[in-house]
């Protein structure tokens, strides 16, 4: 008999496959998604106690189809037509389960949806998480999350999207959205921007699982490979990233013996393979930067000149001021704090009021030995962050410098 955790993994793997079959049979994404969710909940209730059926996929399909049929029967006006559809055999399986998962990912990241809606729908329809699990991960009531998912499905319905892959240039654009949504889910888990929980493993793990599925479906796409590598190389540091009470430990001070070497090796293999194939995109560059950090025995051993060059490349690719901020840090590590501080000046406009600009300034002024200015910037950063572990870290930095200066 499977344990609860084993059942959960199996359900998440089967969820998009089952949903694909049910959508093909009934053609209604929104209702099919509800029916599959109910089937998953029933399985999660029964399987741990009664044992996993011989054909779990068939069990789920049957349970979901029964719910669809019940629901359609209750709609008297449409009864005859829909029953006929329900009894029909599904079309010959000329598509693989992997394709169905991919189609679902593409559907859930539809441009009609806001990022928050796309994230919720992706986790439920492609990830097979329950509404309660998603609500819990985002610290909102279950009813709120249920409504967010229901509205997202409604929006897709209104947009007239059929169950299938977008074509032409829309395909490439949608793939970018899918990667972005998975990246947001990963980040939400890894470095939550709100609240006290620094790491919500559930979300990061799910993002990695979905990115692995995406990579398996599109093994030749360098950016998909780069995204998966970036997640693995970042997640490898998780065991060292927080102390016993959830307090934040910055990269430079982490106990690197606690990094997950197996994840790092996997990430390095992926990114090396992707780079050998040519066209380099931003996820690959970020993965490469992460790999260089992961390769260093300590912060002093880090190949900062190469990181600096890569941030330069990334900044030209993206024009993102946050990348420019990281380039300033790398510049300080290579050419000294004054060179880094000079690069921060043009960021006062685009990053006005952002706590990370103050945090980096504080760090570089500290490097330069200007303790009073560093304290002022640490305090300004602490006043503006929306993360409790970050706020506590920055306040302690200010206090540490002050105590050092006083003694």
């Amino acid at each position, binding site marked *: 008999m499977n344990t609860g955790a084993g059942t959960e993994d199996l359900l998440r793997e089967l969820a998009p496959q089952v949903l694909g079959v049910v959508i093909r049979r009934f053609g209604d994404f929104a209702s099919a998604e509800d029916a599959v969710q109910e089937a998953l909940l029933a399985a999660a209730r029964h399987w741990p106690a009664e044992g996993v059926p011989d054909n779990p996929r068939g069990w789920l399909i049957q349970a979901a189809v029964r719910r669809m049929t019940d629901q359609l029967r209750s709609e008297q006006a449409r009864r005859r037509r829909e029953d006929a559809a329900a009894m029909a055999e599904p079309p010959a399986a000329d598509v693989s389960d992997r394709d169905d998962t991919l189609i679902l990912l593409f559907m859930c990241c539809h441009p009609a949806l806001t990022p928050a809606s796309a994230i919720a729908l992706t986790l439920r329809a492609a990830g097979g998480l329950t509404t309660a699990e998603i609500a819990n991960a985002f610290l909102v009531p279950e009813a709120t999350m249920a409504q967010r998912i229901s509205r997202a499905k409604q929006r897709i319905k209104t947009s007239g999207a059929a169950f299938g892959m977008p074509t032409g240039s829309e395909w490439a654009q949608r793939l970018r959205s899918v990667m972005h949504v998975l990246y947001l889910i990963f980040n939400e888990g890894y470095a939550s921007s709100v609240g006290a929980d620094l790491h919500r493993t559930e979300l990061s793990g799910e993002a990695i699982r979905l990115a692995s599925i995406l990579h398996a479906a599109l093994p030749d796409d360098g950016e998909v490979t780069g995204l998966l590598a970036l997640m693995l190389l970042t997640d490898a540091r998780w065991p060292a990233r927080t102390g016993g009470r959830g307090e934040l430990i910055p990269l430079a001070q982490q106990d690197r013996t606690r990094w997950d070497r197996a994840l790092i090796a996997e990430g390095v293999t992926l990114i090396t393979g992707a780079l050998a194939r040519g066209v380099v995109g931003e996820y690959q560059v970020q993965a490469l930067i992460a790999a260089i950090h992961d390769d260093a025995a300590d912060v002093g051993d880090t190949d900062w000149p190469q990181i600096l060059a890569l941030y330069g490349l990334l900044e030209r690719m993206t024009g993102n001021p946050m990348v420019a901020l990281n380039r300033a840090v790398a510049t300080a590590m290579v050419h000294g704090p004054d060179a880094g501080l000079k690069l921060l000046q043009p960021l006062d406009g685009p990053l006005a009021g952002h706590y990370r600009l103050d945090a980096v300034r504080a760090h570089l002024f500290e490097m330069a030995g200007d303790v009073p200015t560093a304290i002022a910037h640490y305090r300004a950063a602490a006043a503006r962050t929306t993360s409790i572990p970050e706020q506590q870290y920055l306040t*302690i930095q200010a*206090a540490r410098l002050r105590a050092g200066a006083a003694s």
Partner: protein
Amino acid sequence: MTKFMLLQNYGATLACDLPMAEWDPADIKAHIEFQLALNDELASNGELVDAQGLAGPELARFVTSDGGRAPVVTDGPFPESKELLAGYRMIDVESEARAIEIAAKASAAPGPGGVPIQQPIEVRQVMGAPGPGE
């Protein structure tokens, strides 16, 4: 069971008017540990509903609107920023006496040198549905 909000603002506490960034780092860590331990204790008692800290006054905005024209959005610095809410705990407890007991504990959080800061805690009962006899 009755729900209460325990509210705290940015005002000076009775025993400590030093901003936290000027405490000894070890005292800050002890204070954080105290707050986490109190939340753990309330959670394991089955009394904690929710505990949240709010982002600082610099990120606060006041909004008024007449429902027609563009809303008036005021941001800081606010002259009365010490009166702004810093954080809250919502608890679900047997009695008001228990709520006061928890508030007293929170008020005595350790400050510089481990001395209780005597933070004022506003204890407010959350209104509910009318009782059966009302």
